[in-house]
C-alpha cells in the first residue's frame, strides 16, 4: 500500500525508479536490521511491525541509514558525495563514524509519532569529554526542502526557547545548542585541534566558534553586524522573502514544535526517540502534506545532527561544552537526512457548518473520538458534526438524566452506578432508559520518560503491584515534604528511616530494572496523577490489591528490606477495598518558618506542593514527554519573584535538566502512544510473568472480561490469567432513548462508524489510533445492534420535535422504558423496579439528634460501678482477714 501511495506523490518520470528505489530501500532496511541485529536496539518489540497498543515498531517504509553513507536524496538513496576524509572537519568524524539510524516510517505520514532508533553512536558523556559536560548526543528537526539534495538550515523548524533545562550554572548543556545561533571565528581561519582559531572579535578559541560561518550573508542578523555571532534565519516554505531571526514564534514555539534538542546515546551506543511528524496544520512554516497546485502533497525531511565532543573550531569541550546551533555550517555538514513523504492534508469542515451534536464522558475515548470526528464530518458532508467534552462520571449521569441535556455519554461503568462508589452505597439516582454500545477498548498504563547521563531508557520498565503501591502512597522519602537532605537536617520522619529515598533506590525496583540509576538531585520521582474519582482509577487499585504481597505491605508489614507504607496511607486501609482515586494523604508539611518580607511569608510546603495533580491523562503525558515537572520546587529563593510581586518565593522545578530526567504518570495507552513514551510491563509479586501492553495481551484480557448487571464488560485485573494485560477498560456509548429522532439517528451513525471502519487500526483520519485495541466481532455486533435499535427508536419517535415520547419525563413511556437497556446479545437489564436504588428505599433512615445534655443517665453508671467495685475489692481482703486463722495461704508468707 505504502509504495503505491508514494509513487502517486512523486513526479511521473520518476515513477518506475521510485518504485524500484522504494523496494530497494525496504530491502536495504531489512538487511540493515539483520546486519545490526546483535548490537541493535534492545527490546522485544523493537524490530517488529508497529504494535497497535504502544505504537512501537516500524512500517515497511522504514529507512536505515549510516552516517558514513553520507546524505540521502529525495528517494532516500545516497547522494554521490560521501563524507570527505580530507575535510578540515574530519577531526569530528570518529564520534559519528559508527552511527546508524533507522526511521520507522517515511511514507504516508500524517501528524503522528514515528520511532527513530540508532546504534553505533558514541555514548553520551564521551569518555574524552569533560565530566561536567554532556557531549555526544543527537539533535533532530523537521525541515521542508524542495531540492533533491535536501534542505538548507533555513528550512528547518528548530530553536524554540524553554525546552531545555541547561542545569545549574549552565555547565550541563549550554542553551545555545537549542538555538539558531553560535559564534563566528576569525575570518579565513581553519579549525585546528592543536591551535583552535579565536573568535571573530579576538576572544579565546577555547570558547568555540564556527569557521564556516557566516556561510551566507543572511546569517548575520541585521543590527548585529560586527558581533562575533551568526544567526540562521527561519524562512517559511511559502514566503522565501521572509527571514525570521531568533526564536521564530510566529511559526512555532515550545508548545507546538517537534524539535529534539537533546537525545542521548546509551553506553552501548544505542538510542531511541519517538519523533512527532507535523503537517501544515501543526507547523504552518513547513507546509508538509499541504496540497500543491499540481494536486500532490508537499514532502519534507527529517534532519538528524549528531553532536560530538569537539567544538567546530577544533577546541575540546572541556571549557564550554558543546555550545552552538546544529544549524551552523560545520555542524550542519555532519547531518543525516531522511526524506519524509506525507499524505495530503484533509480539508476540514468550516466552523459553524452545522450545529455540533454534543457528547460527553470519559477522557479515555478522546483520541479515538477525534479521529472518528474527522471521518464522520466528511462522510456527512459537514452537515452533521459532533462535539465532545471530557466530563466526570457524576456529570454524565446528570447530563443523561436531563431531558434537554446531552444525549450521549461515553462511560466505562453503568450510568449512575458511580453514586454507589462515591457515596458508599448511597442514593444512586434514577436514570432514564439508556442503550449501551461498546465503542473502544482502552488500556491504562504507566508512561515513562527516563533520560539519564547513561542514556535514555528505551525499553519497558518493569513494575510489580507492590512497587506501584509504594509509588502511590508517598512512601519513598523524596515524596515527603519533610525530607530534604540538602540542609543536612530534614531527613524525614522516623517511620521512614528504612525506606529508600527514590523508587530507583528500592532493591525491588533495581532487581527488575538494572542500570537505572537515581538522579543526582531534583524532583520527586512519584508518578503524576489526576485528581478525579473514576472506575478507571479503581481498576488500578484492584490490580494492586489483587496481589497478596501488595496487600500485606499496604496493611503495614515491611517488605524484605524493611520498607514500610506511609502510616497516613496505612490508615486508609487501601488493601481492603479498591478506592477510585489517588489520595495525597500525607498530612505533614515542611516549615521553613516565616521568611522576612516585606511582606513576611509562610515558607511551608505540604504534599500537594511537591506532588501536585495534573488536569487530565493527556496533560500528564505532555508533562512526562516534556520532562516538565509541575512541582513547586524545594528550595526557597530569596531573589525569586512571588505572585504578589514581592521578592522571595520557591525556586520552581520546571523542566528537568538533560541527563537527569525521570518522569512517569498513570495514563491511557492512547496518550502514551501519541507522545511516544515508554510503557511499563506489569509483573507478579515475584517480578516474574511480566506482561507488556500489546495487541495480544490486551486481547487476552478482554476475553476474560465479565459483564456487570447492566451487561457492561469489566476486566478484573486479578483474574485475567497469564499473558493477559490486567488494566483494560471497555468504553460504551450510553445513549438516552428518549430524545429527538434526529439526535438518535446521529448517535446511531457515530456508533455504526465507530464499530465499523472506526476499528481499523491506524493513524489516518477515521482510523483507530494507537493505544486502542480493535474490538472483537461480538462487541462490534453488539454496537451495531444498539445502533439499529436507536434507528428503530428514531423512526418510532417520529418527527424530531413532535411526539410525547421525546418530550416526556425520563420515566415516561418509550420503546425502551423498561429500564437500562443493553442491545445485542447481552441480556436486558432488570426492569426499573429491580434496580438497586429507588427513592423509597432512600427515604427512611432513622436519624436521631443527640440529646441536649452531653451524657444523660449514663453519667450514673460510673458512680454505681465504682461503688460496687469498691465493695467487692474491700470485701475480698476483709473476708480473708477474717478467715486468716483457719486457712493457710503460703504465697503470702514468703
Amino acid at each position, binding site marked *: 500500500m505504502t509504495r503505491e501511495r508514494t509513487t502517486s506523490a512523486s513526479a511521473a518520470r520518476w515513477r518506475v525508479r521510485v518504485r524500484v528505489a522504494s523496494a530497494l530501500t525496504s530491502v536495504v532496511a531489512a538487511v540493515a536490521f539483520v546486519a545490526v541485529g546483535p548490537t541493535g536496539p534492545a527490546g522485544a518489540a523493537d524490530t517488529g511491525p508497529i504494535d497497535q497498543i504502544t505504537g512501537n515498531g516500524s512500517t515497511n517504509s522504514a529507512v536505515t541509514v549510516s552516517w558514513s553513507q553520507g546524505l540521502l536524496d529525495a528517494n532516500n538513496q545516497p547522494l554521490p558525495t560521501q563524507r570527505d576524509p580530507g575535510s578540515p572537519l574530519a577531526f569530528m568524524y570518529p564520534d559519528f563514524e559508527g552511527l546508524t539510524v533507522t526511521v520507522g516510517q517515511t511514507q504516508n505520514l500524517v501528524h503522528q509519532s514515528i520511532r527513530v532508533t540508532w546504534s553505533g553512536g558514541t555514548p553520551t558523556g564521551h569518555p574524552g569529554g569533560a565530566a561536567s559536560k554532556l557531549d555526544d548526543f543527537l539533535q533532530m528537526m523537521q525541515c521542508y526542502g524542495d531540492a533533491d539534495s535536501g534542505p538548507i538550515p533555513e528550512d528547518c523548524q528548530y530553536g524554540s526557547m524553554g525546552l531545555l533545562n541547561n542545569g545549574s550554572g549552565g555547565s550541563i548543556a549550554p542553551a545555545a545548542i537549542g538555538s539558531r545561533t553560535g559564534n563566528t571565528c576569525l575570518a579565513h581561519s581553519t579549525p585546528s585541534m592543536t591551535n583552535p582559531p579565536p573568535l571573530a572579535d579576538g576572544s579565546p578559541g577555547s570558547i568555540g566558534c564556527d569557521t564556516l560561518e557566516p556561510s551566507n550573508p543572511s546569517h548575520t542578523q541585521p543590527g548585529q553586524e560586527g558581533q562575533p555571532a551568526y544567526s540562521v534565519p527561519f524562512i517559511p516554505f511559502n514566503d522565501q522573502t521572509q527571514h525570521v531571526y531568533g526564536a521564530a514564534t510566529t511559526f512555532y514555539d515550545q508548545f*507546538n514544535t517537534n524539535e529534539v534538542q537533546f537525545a542521548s546515546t546509551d553506553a552501548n551506543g544505542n538510542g531511541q526517540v519517538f519523533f512527532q511528524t507535523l503537517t501544515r496544520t501543526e507547523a504552518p512554516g513547513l507546509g508538509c502534506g499541504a496540497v500543491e497546485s499540481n494536486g500532490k502533497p508537499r514532502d519534507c525531511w527529517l534532519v538528524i545532527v549528531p553532536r560530538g565532543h569537539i567544538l567546530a573550531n577544533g577546541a575540546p569541550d572541556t571549557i564550554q561544552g558543546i555550545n552552538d546551533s546544529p544549524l551552523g555550517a560545520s555542524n550542519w555538514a555532519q547531518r543525516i537526512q531522511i526524506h519524509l513523504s506525507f499524505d495530503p492534508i484533509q480539508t*476540514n469542515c468550516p466552523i459553524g*457548518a452545522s450545529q455540533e451534536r454534543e457528547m460527553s464522558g470519559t477522557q479515555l475515548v478522546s483520541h479515538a473520538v477525534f479521529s472518528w*470526528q474527522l471521518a464522520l464530518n466528511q462522510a456527512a458532508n459537514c452537515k452533521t458534526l459532533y462535539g465532545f467534552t471530557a466530563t466526570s462520571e457524576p456529570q454524565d449521569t446528570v447530563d443523561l438524566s436531563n431531558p434537554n441535556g446531552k444525549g450521549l455519554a461515553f462511560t466505562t461503568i453503568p450510568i449512575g452506578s458511580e*453514586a454507589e462508589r462515591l457515596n458508599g452505597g448511597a442514593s444512586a439516582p434514577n436514570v432514564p432508559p439508556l442503550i449501551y454500545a461498546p465503542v473502544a477498548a482502552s488500556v491504562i498504563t504507566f508512561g515513562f520518560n527516563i533520560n539519564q547521563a547513561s542514556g535514555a531508557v528505551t525499553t519497558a520498565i518493569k513494575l510489580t503491584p507492590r512497587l506501584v503501591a509504594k509509588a502511590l502512597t508517598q512512601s519513598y522519602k523524596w515524596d515527603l515534604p519533610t525530607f530534604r537532605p540538602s540542609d543536612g537536617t530534614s531527613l524525614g520522619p522516623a517511620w521512614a528511616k528504612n525506606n529508600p529515598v527514590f523508587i530507583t533506590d528500592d532493591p525491588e525496583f533495581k532487581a527488575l530494572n538494572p542500570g537505572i540509576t537515581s538522579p543526582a538531585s531534583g524532583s520527586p520521582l512519584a508518578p503524576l496523577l489526576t485528581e478525579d474519582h473514576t472506575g478507571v482509577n479503581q481498576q488500578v487499585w484492584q490490580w494492586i490489591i*489483587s496481589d497478596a504481597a501488595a496487600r500485606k505491605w499496604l496493611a503495614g508489614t515491611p517488605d524484605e528490606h524493611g520498607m514500610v507504607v506511609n502510616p497516613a496511607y496505612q490508615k486508609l486501609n487501601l488493601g481492603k477495598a479498591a478506592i477510585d482515586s489517588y489520595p495525597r494523604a500525607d498530612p505533614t508539611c515542611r516549615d521553613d518558618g516565616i521568611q522576612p518580607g516585606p511582606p513576611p511569608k509562610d515558607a511551608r510546603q505540604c504534599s*500537594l506542593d511537591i506532588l501536585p495533580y495534573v488536569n487530565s491523562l493527556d496533560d500528564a503525558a505532555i508533562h512526562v514527554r516534556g520532562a516538565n515537572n509541575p512541582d513547586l520546587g524545594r528550595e526557597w529563593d530569596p531573589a525569586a519573584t512571588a505572585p504578589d510581586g514581592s521578592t522571595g518565593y520557591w525556586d520552581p522545578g520546571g523542566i528537568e535538566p538533560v541527563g537527569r530526567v525521570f518522569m512517569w504518570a498513570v495514563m491511557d495507552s492512547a496518550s502514551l502512544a501519541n507522545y511516544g513514551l515508554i510503557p511499563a510491563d506489569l509483573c507478579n509479586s515475584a517480578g516474574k510473568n511480566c506482561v507488556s501492553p500489546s495487541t495480544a495481551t490486551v486481547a487476552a484480557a478482554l476475553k476474560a472480561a465479565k459483564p456487570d448487571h447492566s451487561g457492561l464488560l469489566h476486566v478484573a485485573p486479578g483474574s485475567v490469567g497469564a499473558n493477559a494485560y490486567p488494566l483494560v477498560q471497555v468504553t460504551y456509548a450510553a445513549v438516552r432513548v428518549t430524545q429527538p429522532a434526529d439526535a438518535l439517528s446521529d448517535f446511531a451513525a457515530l456508533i455504526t462508524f465507530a464499530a465499523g471502519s472506526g476499528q481499523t487500526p491506524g493513524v489516518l483520519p477515521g482510523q483507530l489510533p494507537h493505544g486502542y485495541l480493535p474490538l472483537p466481532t461480538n462487541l462490534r455486533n453488539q454496537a451495531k445492534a444498539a445502533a439499529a435499535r436507536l434507528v428503530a427508536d428514531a423512526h418510532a419517535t417520529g418527527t424530531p420535535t413532535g411526539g410525547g415520547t421525546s418530550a416526556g419525563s425520563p420515566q415516561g413511556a418509550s420503546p425502551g422504558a423498561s429500564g437500562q437497556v443493553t442491545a445485542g446479545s447481552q441480556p436486558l437489564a432488570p426492569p426499573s423496579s429491580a434496580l438497586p436504588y429507588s427513592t423509597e428505599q432512600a*427515604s427512611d433512615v432513622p436519624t436521631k439528634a443527640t440529646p441536649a445534655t452531653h451524657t444523660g443517665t449514663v453519667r450514673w453508671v460510673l*458512680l454505681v460501678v465504682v461503688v460496687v467495685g469498691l465493695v467487692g475489692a474491700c470485701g475480698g481482703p476483709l473476708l480473708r*482477714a477474717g478467715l486468716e486463722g483457719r486457712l493457710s495461704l503460703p504465697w503470702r508468707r514468703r
Partner: protein
Amino acid sequence: MATVMSLIATLTTLGGVRADAAQVGTAHAADASYVPLSGSGSTWSQNAINAWAANVQQYGMVIHYNGLGSTFGRMQFKQGSVDWAASDIPYGVQDGTNFDPPPTTRGFAYMPDTAGGTTFMYNLNIGTRRVTNLRLSGENIAKIFTGVLKKWNDPAIKKDNPGLNLPAIKIVPVVRGDGSGATAQFTQWMLATQGSLWRAYCTKVNRNPCTQTSAYPVVPGSGMVAQNGDLGVSGYVSQRQAVGTIGYVEFSYAIQAGFPVAKVLNRAGYYTEPTAGHVAVSLLKAQINMDKTNPNTYLTQNLSQVYSNSDPRTYELSSYSYMILPTTTGFGGLTTSKGFTLGDFGKYLLCQGQNQVDSLGYSALPINLVQAGFDQLRTIPGAAIPNINIRTCNNPTFSTDGTNTLARNDPMPPACDKQGPTQCVTGTGGAKTPTPVTNGAGGATTATPGATNGASGPNAPAGGLPLGGSGPLVPCDPDTGACDTGTANAAGEQQVDGLPTATGTNLGDGLEIALMAIAAVLLLAVALTPPLIAQGAANRRARRNRDGGVA
C-alpha cells in the same frame, strides 16, 4: 489493507464533494490558513478553554493553553510570549501598590469567554457522614477568610445552618498561592460587601492601600493554606484528611472533585449555589462597560449590582472571565494568519462552545455579550468575522424574543433554602448525596424534598442515606476484583450517625462536678483499699507470730 484503501478512497471522494459544503458554510476557504496558537492564564476558566481547544481540532485548529493563573497570563501577553491570554480581571486593577498597567507594546481588547461562579468548596463531616448542604452568609464567608471565625461550630455558622450540628473542629481556609483572578474577584466582592472585615484584614497583613488583590495575603502562622491554581485548591480540600478545610474555586472544580459547595446567602434571603441558570440570572445585573472609546475598560464588568441583585435566584459571586485579544500585529510574532485563526476560535467559543460549558460547571454567555464579543473579534488583525447569525450561532442562551433562555427557565430556589429554621437536605456541587438535617432545638428530621435544584440536575431523592466515610468504600474481593455494589446498605444494615455535640470547655454544672469528685475519690479507694487492708492484715499476723509463736 483493503479496508484501509477503500476508506482512503471514500475520504478522498468525499473531500472532493465537500467543497460545496464549504461554500454554504462561510465565505473563506475553510481551514486553509489556520495556524497554531498559544495562550496562557486563568485556571478559573481553564476547563472550558481546554474543552474548546479539544473540539476545534476537528476543524484543523491547534490551540495550546497553559493554565498558569490570570496574573501570569496578563504578564505573558504583555511580554509577547503568548498570542492571547485568559484573565478573570482586566489590566489596571489597583492591587495594593501595584497598578498592573495595560500593555503599551501591543494593542489589546477584552472579550468575555465564559461566565461562572466562584464557589466555596469544603470538606466537613458530621460523624461519618459528609456534609453536602452547608449554607453561609457573606459575612461568615468573609469572617472565615479573614481568620475571624475559627471553629465550625461557631454560633454564627450555626445560625446559617439550623439543621446541622457542625463539629467543633478548626476551620482551615485554603486560598490561592499564585496570582489569581479568582482571588481578585473574591476580594473585590469582600471589599464591596464586607468592607469593614476586609479592611481590618488589610491592616493585619499590612496591605496599604487596602484594595482587591490577585495575591491573597496570608498571615504567617495563621494556619491558612495557600495552593497553586484551582486544581491545587480543590485537590487540597478533597483529601480525606483535610476535614475542616474550605477553599474558593470555580464551580467546575468542585463538580470534578465530587465535592459540595456552600450555598451563599443573597440579598433576597435565599442560600443559592451557582448553577448555570442562577449565574445567568445574577449576571443580568452585571454592568458591562460599553464605552468603546476606552479600550482599557471596554467590556469590563462592574459587578456591584450583582452583589445586591434582589432576585432570589442570585448567586452573588457570579462573574465573567475574559480573553485578552491582540489588536496589533508584529509584537509577539502576531500575524494576520494568527489573527484569522484566533478570530475563528473566538467565533466558535462564543457560539457552539457555549453548549459545552454547562456540563463543566460554567454558565453560557448571553446574547448581548456574544454580540459585543463578535465586535471585539473584528478588531483582531486578519480575523474574518461575519455578522452574527442568531439561528446558526447555536448559543444555548439565545431565544427568539431576545431574553436569556437560561435565565428565563431558571427555577426559583426551594423554600427550604430561605433563611430561617428550615434547611434543604439536597447535596450541592459535585456531591449530590443529601444530608439529613435537624431543627436546631428539636430532633426531628426535616425531610424537605429538594425541589429541582438548578436547571439541569435530576431531582435528588428526599431523605438521606448514609455516607460511608469520605472515600469510596465499596467492598471488593481482592482476588477476583469483583465488587459488592448492591447490598451494603440494605435495610438491615443501616448505619445511624451520631449527631455530634460540641464539647464544652467548662466542667459543667455543680452536680456534674460533685459526681466527678465522688467518682474520683471512689476510684482511688478501689485502687488503694485492698492493698492497705492486706498490708494491715499482714502486719497484724506478723505481730501475732512474733508475740505468740503460733505455727
